[in-house]
C-alpha cells in the first residue's frame, strides 16, 4: 500500500527533476540534506532510518534485561558498553532522520503510538545468559548483513552513520560469539543454555531480513533509489551460508532438518521461517511487544519532568545572563 502511495506521489513531481535526481543516484553521487529530493524518497528514508533508530532503542531492552545479572565484572562492563553503543547508534540515526525534517520527539511519539515499527526480533525474550551471546552473534550478525551495504546508500547522512555503526556491530558480533564459545567449553548446563538460545533465536534471526522478495512491498523503488542495496532473500542466504560453519565450530545444532549444502547452487538449502508468526509479531502479537512498548512509554513518561526541568533551567539561565548583561550596560 505504502509503495503504491509513493509511486502516485512521485508521478506528480516534475519529471525532469526526477530524472536528474535518478541520474545522480545512478552515478553514485550522495544526496545531501539541502538537495532537492522526491517526497517519496524523503518519506521512505524517514520510515527506514526512523525504524532503524527505534530498533536500536528498543533493542537496548532485551540485553538490558541481563545487565544486573551479568556473571562477572568484565561481562557486566562489556554488556553495559554494548547497550550503551546501541543508545549511541540510536542517537546518530535520529540525527540523520532530523536532517530530513522530522524531530526526535516526533519520531518517538510515532514509535509509542504504533505508527512506526522497530525490528521484530526485539519482541522476543532473553531468557538465559546464553542469549547475550546469541543476540550478539545471530542478531547483530544479521543486522550487519543488512547494514554493511547501507554504508553505500544514496543518502549521505545515513551512509555516514552506518559506517560507524557497522564497526561497532561487528565488534559486538565477535563478543557474542566468544561468549558462547566460552560457555560451550563449560558445564553441561551452560551448553544446554547455548543450545536453547540457538533453538529460540534461529528463525527470528532469519526473519530479520524481512519477507521473501516476492512478498516484499517496499523493495523495487527503494532499490532504484539505492536506499536498499540487496534483496531480502539474497541477504538471508548470505547469512545462512556464513552462520552454518560458525555454529558447527561452536558445536551447536541449527534447528532445521532441511539444512544441507547444495552443491549445484553453491549455497545451503534451509527452511523458511514461519511467516505467519512473523506477521503476527509485526501486528503486535509477539511474545514481548506489549512489554517493550510499555517499557519505552514508561521511560518517556517518567523522564518528562526531567526534560522539562532541563529546558526550563536553560531558559532561566539565559534570561538571568541577559538580565545581568543589561544591568552591566546600564
Amino acid at each position, binding site marked *: 500500500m505504502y509503495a503504491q502511495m509513493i509511486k502516485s506521489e512521485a508521478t506528480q513531481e516534475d519529471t525532469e527533476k526526477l530524472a536528474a535526481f535518478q541520474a545522480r543516484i545512478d552515478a553514485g553521487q550522495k544526496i545531501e540534506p539541502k538537495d532537492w529530493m522526491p517526497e517519496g524518497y524523503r518519506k521512505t528514508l524517514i520510515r527506514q532510518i526512523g525504524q532503524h533508530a527505534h530498533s536500536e532503542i528498543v533493542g537496548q531492552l532485551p540485553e538490558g534485561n541481563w545487565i544486573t545479572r551479568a556473571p562477572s565484572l568484565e561481562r557486566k562492563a562489556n554488556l553495559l558498553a554494548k547497550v550503551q553503543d546501541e543508545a549511541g547508534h540510536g542517537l546518530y540515526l535520529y540525527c540523520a532522520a532530523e536532517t530530513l525534517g522530522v524531530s526526535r520527539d516526533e519520531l518517538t511519539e510515532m514509535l509509542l503510538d504504533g505508527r512506526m515499527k522497530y525490528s521484530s526480533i526485539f519482541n522476543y525474550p532473553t531468557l538465559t545468559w546464553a542469549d547475550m551471546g546469541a543476540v550478539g552473534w545471530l542478531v547483530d550478525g544479521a543486522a550487519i548483513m543488512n547494514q554493511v551495504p547501507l554504508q553505500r546508500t544514496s543518502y549521505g547522512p545515513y551512509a555516514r552513520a552506518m559506517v560507524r555503526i557497522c564497526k561497532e556491530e561487528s565488534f559486538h558480533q565477535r563478543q557474542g560469539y566468544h561468549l558462547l564459545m566460552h*560457555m560451550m567449553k563449560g*558445564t553441561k548446563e*551452560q551448553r544446554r543454555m547455548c543450545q536453547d538460545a540457538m533453538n529460540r533465536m534461529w528463525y527470528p534471526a532469519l526473519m530479520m531480513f524481512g519477507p521473501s522478495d516476492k512478498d516484499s512491498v517496499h523493495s523495487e523503488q527503494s532499490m532504484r533509489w539505492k536506499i536498499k542495496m540487496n534483496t531480502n532473500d539474497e541477504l538471508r542466504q548470505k547469512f545462512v551460508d556464513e552462520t552454518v560453519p560458525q555454529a558447527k565450530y561452536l558445536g551447536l545444532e541449527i534447528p532445521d532438518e532441511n539444512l544441507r549444502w547444495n552443491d549445484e547452487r553453491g549455497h545451503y538449502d534451509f527452511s523458511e521461517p514461519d511467516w505467519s508468526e512473523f506477521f503476527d509479531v509485526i501486528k503486535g502479537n509477539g511474545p514481548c511487544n506489549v512489554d517493550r512498548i510499555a517499557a519505552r512509554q514508561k521511560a518517556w513518561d517518567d523522564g518528562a519532568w*526531567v526534560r522539562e526541568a532541563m529546558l526550563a533551567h536553560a531558559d532561566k539561565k539565559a534570561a538571568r545572563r541577559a538580565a545581568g548583561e543589561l544591568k552591566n550596560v546600564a
Partner: protein
Amino acid sequence: MSSDPHLVEFFLRQGDNALVLGHRLSEWCGMGPALEEDIALTNTALDLIGQSKLWLAHAAEIEGADRSADDLAFLRDAYDFRNVLLLEVPNADYGRTMLREFFFDAFQLPWLKALTDSTDDRVAEVAAKSAKEAAYHLERSAETVIALGDGTDESHAKMMAALDYLWPYVGEMMVDDDVDHAMAEAGVAPLPSAMRPAWDDTVNATFREAQLPRPDTKFAHAGGRNGFRHTEHLGHMLAQMQVLQRSHPGATW
C-alpha cells in the same frame, strides 16, 4: 604476602562503594529520561565497575585467600559488603539517582585526589586513574542537580523529596573508625572526616545555584562501611547480581 586485615578492609570499602553504586546506575541503562542522559549515566556506571575491579583485585590479593575480584563481588553475603548505605538504597526517580550521585562525587573527588599521595603505591595508582573519572562525574552530577533543583516547580519538589530521603545517609561517608585511623597512621589514606570542608563547599555552592536548602539535621545512619547493619535493599540487589554465580558453582563465564 602477609594479610593486613585493616588494609583489606580499606580496599573492600573502596571497591564495594564503586561496585554498588555502579550496579545501581546500571539499572538505568536503556531507561533514562533522554538518550544523552542514558549514555552519560552508563558511562559513569562503566567507570565505577572498572574502578571496583581494580580495588577488589587488590583486596583479594592482599587477603591472600585465593579469591578473585569476581569471587568478592559475586560470592560474598551482604554482611561482608563494606559500601556506605547511601549507595545501596534504591534509585527511585532520576532526581534521587542524580542527587545521590552528586553527594558521593562531592566526597569522592577530594578523597581520590588525596589518595594519590598514599604511601601504598596500589592505592595511589588506582586513585590517580579514578580521580580523572570522578572529576567528570562531579561536574555532570552537580550540573544536573542544579538544573533539576532550579528547573520547574515539579522538579524542585522532587529534588526536595530526594533530599529528605538521602540526607540522613550522607554522614556515614565522613565518620572515622578504627580502620580509618590505622590507614591514616600508615599514611595510606587521610581520615574521611578530613573531606568534610571540601564536601561542604561543593554542596553549599551547588545547592545555592539549585535553590535547594541545606537541611539542618546532622543525624547519620551507619552500618554499611563496617558491614554491621546494611539496609534491606542490599540483599535484593545481591540476589539479582549474584544469581548466576550462586546457581552454578564453579562455572566460569
